[in-house]
Structure formats: C-alpha cells, structure tokens
C-alpha cells in the first residue's frame, strides 16, 4: 500500500509532465505555422518577418529539452547492446539504478549551470525580438529539473501509472487499424475479382 503523500507527488509530476508535453506539441505547431507564414509573407506580401527565425529557434531549444525528459520517462534514448541480452536480475537491478543516478547527475548539472547561465544572460537581449536571452536558456534548468524528477522515479522504482496519461498525450498506433485492414482486404480480394 503506497502512501497518500506519494500519490500526491505522483499526480503532481504527471500534471507537470502533461502540461510541458502539451506545450511542446503546441510549440511544434507554432513553429511550423510561423515559418510557413514567414515564407508566405516574403513571397506574396513582399516583406520578411525579422523575428520569425529567432522565435522558431527559441521554441526549438525549449522543446528539445522538454523532449529530452520525455525520452527519459519513456526510455526513448538509444543505448547499445553489446552485453548479452539476458543478464542476472542483480546486474540488471544495479545497471538500472546506476543509470538513474547518472541521469540525475546530468539533470542536476543542467539545473545548476543552466540557472547560472540564465542569470548571467538576463541582461542581454535577443536582437530581433528584444526578448531577454535568459528566457532562451531557461529551457535548460526546466528540462533538467524534469529529468531529475523522472529519474528519481526510476531510482525508487515508482510505478508512474502511465496508462492514465496515454489518452491525453495521444499515444496511438502508427496507422489506424481500420485503414490497415481495408487496404489488406482490397489487395486480397482484388486478386479474385
């Protein structure tokens, strides 16, 4: 039986995670529309948007570091398997915990030095938008903090209850089942026709 406090913490982390993932998706949409509009303005209206590239890059830095944390949670980051597939349970346990500790370390460096970087760049501005540069680098400590939170759950072996989140973040099969079946039937029946 897990304590109520733990459940609260988990709900909190899941909420933060969901909000950031949603933001990252909207950033991708925003970026696409932004560059699309920029091209349209340049060729059709004959005027460029000076700050479009800068904003798109700001968004890219942000969703890179949010996605990095997503990768930790969903184990998307690639590793290589030179070691034998089947290791003893003990070795696997040690490796999992070791990975979690190392990733926490990287997250902490991102938070600590990212924070310093934000502070030291708050005085300078991004030339085209006039936004303070610190907001660009803020993605580092935010992403780092999320990475730490996610690997802490790995370290302590906490069940994330990911199935609650699946419908909200949009996890689905590559191609919808009905399309696959329709095409397969067509290819199969076409033969007899």
């Amino acid at each position, binding site marked *: 039986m897990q304590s109520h406090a733990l459940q609260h913490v988990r709900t909190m982390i899941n909420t933060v995670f969901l909000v950031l993932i949603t933001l990252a998706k909207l950033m991708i949409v925003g970026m696409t529309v932004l560059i699309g509009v920029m091209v349209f303005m340049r060729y059709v209206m004959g005027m460029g948007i000076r700050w479009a590239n800068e904003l798109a890059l700001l968004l890219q830095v942000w969703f890179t570091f949010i996605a990095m944390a997503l990768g930790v949670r969903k184990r998307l980051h690639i590793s290589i398997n030179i070691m034998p597939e089947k290791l003893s349970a003990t070795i696997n346990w040690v490796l999992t915990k070791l990975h979690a500790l190392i990733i926490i370390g990287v997250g902490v*460096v991102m938070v600590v030095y990212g924070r310093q970087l934000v502070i030291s760049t708050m005085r300078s501005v991004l030339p085209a938008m006039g936004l303070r540069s610190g907001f660009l680098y803020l993605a580092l400590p935010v992403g780092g903090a999320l990475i730490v939170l996610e690997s802490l759950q790995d370290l302590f072996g906490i069940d994330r209850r990911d199935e609650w989140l699946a419908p909200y973040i*949009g996890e689905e099969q590559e191609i919808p089942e009905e399309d696959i079946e329709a095409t397969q039937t067509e290819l199969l029946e076409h*033969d007899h026709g």
Partner: protein
Amino acid sequence: MADHTIATYLLIGSFLLLIFLKLPITFALAVSTIATAFYLDVSLLSIVQRMASGVRIFSLLAIPFFILAGELMSKGGIATRLIKFSNLIIGRLRGGLGLVNVLASMFFGGISGSAVADVSSIGSIMIPVMKKKGYDADYSTAITVTSACQGIVIPPSHNVIIYSLAAGGVSVGALFLAGIVPGVLLGLVLMALSYWIAVRRGYPAESGYTLKEARKIAQDAMFGLLTPIIIIGGVISGVFTATESAAVACIYAFLVSAGVYREMSLRRLWSVLYSTLRTLAMVLSLIAMANAFGWLLAFLRVPALVTQGLLTISDNPIVLLLLINVMLLLLGMIMDMAPLIVITTPILFPVVVTEIGMSPIQFGILMMLNLGIGLATPPVGTGLFVGCAVGGTTIEKATRAMLPMYAAMILVLLLVTFIPAISMTVPNWFMN
C-alpha cells in the same frame, strides 16, 4: 597542468565505458563531456551553453519539420495509397507483392525518410497480405526491412540534415540531389533480386486494374508524392531553404491528409504530434549533447589523431575507403544511425575529404548507405526488430533470408564508394 593526452583518454574512455554499461548514448556523451571539462578546468557554464546552442541552428529546424511531414503523411493515409499505386505499376509481375513492397518503400522514403516508420507502416500492411498469398514469412520480412533502407538515402531525409551539420555545413540541397540515383539504384537492385527469388519460389503475380480504377489510384498517390517534390524543388530552385520547404511541406501534408484524403481528425493530429515529439526526443537531445562533446573532441584534436592513425595503416585511398566502410558497417551493426552520424562524421571527415579527396557530398551518401544497412543487421537493427515483430518471425530466420539482400546492398555501397558519378552527376548538373 591538465594533460591533453589524459583528457583524451578520459573523454573517449568514459564514453565507451558508459555505453558499454548500456547508458543511453545521449547521457554518455553528456557525462564524458562534463567529466573531461571538469578535468580540463573548462567552465561547465560554457559546456551547458554549448548544449543549448547545438540545437539553436536554423538549418536544424528542418528536422522537426521533416519528421512532422512524414508522420502527417503516414498517419494521414499516404502509406495505403502508395501501396495501391505501386501495385498498379508493378504488381502484375511475378512475385508482384515483393516488388510492390520495394517500390512503395521507395516512394515512402521520398516522404518520410525514416526506415523504421517505413517498416512499421508499409510492413504492417504488406507482410500479412504477402503471407496470406503464399509468400514465406521470412522473405516478406526480409524484403520489407531491406527496402526500407532506401528511405534514408532518397531525399528528403532528416538524417542527411544531421550529416550536413556534423560535416560543418555541407549543402543540404546538393546532398538531396546526390541521394536520388543511389537510392533508386538500391531499389532497382533489390527489385531485381526479389523478382529472381519470386520466380524460383513460384510466388504469384497480381491481376491488373481497370482504367477507371487506375486513374483514381494514380491521382490519389500524386497528391502525396507532391510533398517530396515541393521540398526538393523548393531547395534546388533556391525559392526556399531546406527548413522553409520542410515547413511548407508540413502545411501541405496537413492539407492533403485533412482535405483530400479526409483522414486527419484533431485527435489524430494530436497523436501525430506526439509521435513527432517521441522521435525528436531522441534525435535533438542527442545533437545537443554531441555538440558539447564534439567541441571537446576538436579541442583535444582527436580527428587529427585519428587521421594520422589511419594513414599509418595505409595511404592507399582504396584500402582506406574499404577500411572506413567496414568500420561504419560494424559500428552500424551495434549502434543506431543518428548517434553514429554525429559522432563519426567529424572524426572521419578529415581523412575522407581532406586526405583522400572525396567530395563531402559523396561521403554523406556513403555514410547514409552504410548506416542504412546497419539498420537491417543484427544484433542492433531497429528496422530489423520492428520488421520481425510485424512479420511474426525470428531475427535468425529473417537474417538468413536477408543474406542475398545484404550482398545486394553491399554491392550498391561499393559502387557508390568507388564511382563518384553515381552520386555526383545529378547535383553537378543542377548546381552549376
């Protein structure tokens, strides 16, 4: 005070140790960079800044756009239409579905550029149908997995963008153009091989379509196939940069899947965005970390050392190129594409381009082919794993069925390595 030799060993050694311990490559890069910077007394502030600036590059924006366009198209109904279109063109030959599989991958590669997406979308439709029509499961899986490698070479491909950056800004447009002939060549060789196998094993041929059906199928496919034409055309003509054309292609892909194919709901768009983010999670943070790592590599002059080392083995360009191919193939067997591109490009570039004198464009295609083959080889081949899962066969069986196909792919690789004209004719033609 800090000794550069020790720092080099620390950087490379800790990286190798960590990936051996199965730590994700992204984090292995980060840890070895941080540790070495600490030893060299380089400010971690500048290392962290390099991570962020690694992804703050305009041409890199093309990567999310290409991935998004590919996802929009594959979830928005393009895969099924390309398969029907390929069936229309080539299905009536013996072993038709095997050929259709290769041709559909060639078209799909022009849209998605991801071998894994190709295997899972084309394979999940084709393999079950092929099995029902009497094709062997191992053959069906093998042809799906090997043909998917075309997608990496055929433009547009986001891996080419990663190479272009890692190589210090090789023209993306030229790389796209250079990939056309080798990609199609690979497809044709695979088609010839699968036809030969089909005749020997007595696989069936498909029946034709009526003219009315044919027109509908061709029309449907054309809307999708315009996506790569927009991208490549935009880049070649200089109307758009690669990044801009990729963004325009996303908007076009969305309009086609929502307006023409009518297969894009808001809910599906939401899941398209999620799968885009999933792919980006791995690619972009890897590039961010590799940027900091690569900076230390250059600072410690590792690429120069590797060049010297290779030149002591031999100064014959043919031997060196064969050696590099073997090395890349072996690395490709145990490691995935994106990390290999970001790590090996800066190291091998000086040898191949400066010493041997190969065009950086041809080297890019060479690299894509090598690493593409790696996706289809055990022990670590993402394409192979997905294919075996979809095809319901074991890695051993699929690998055995793939032996003649590996030979075909290596033949194409050797041709591309030693005949520059295969890759360079098209870009020279357009760029001059």
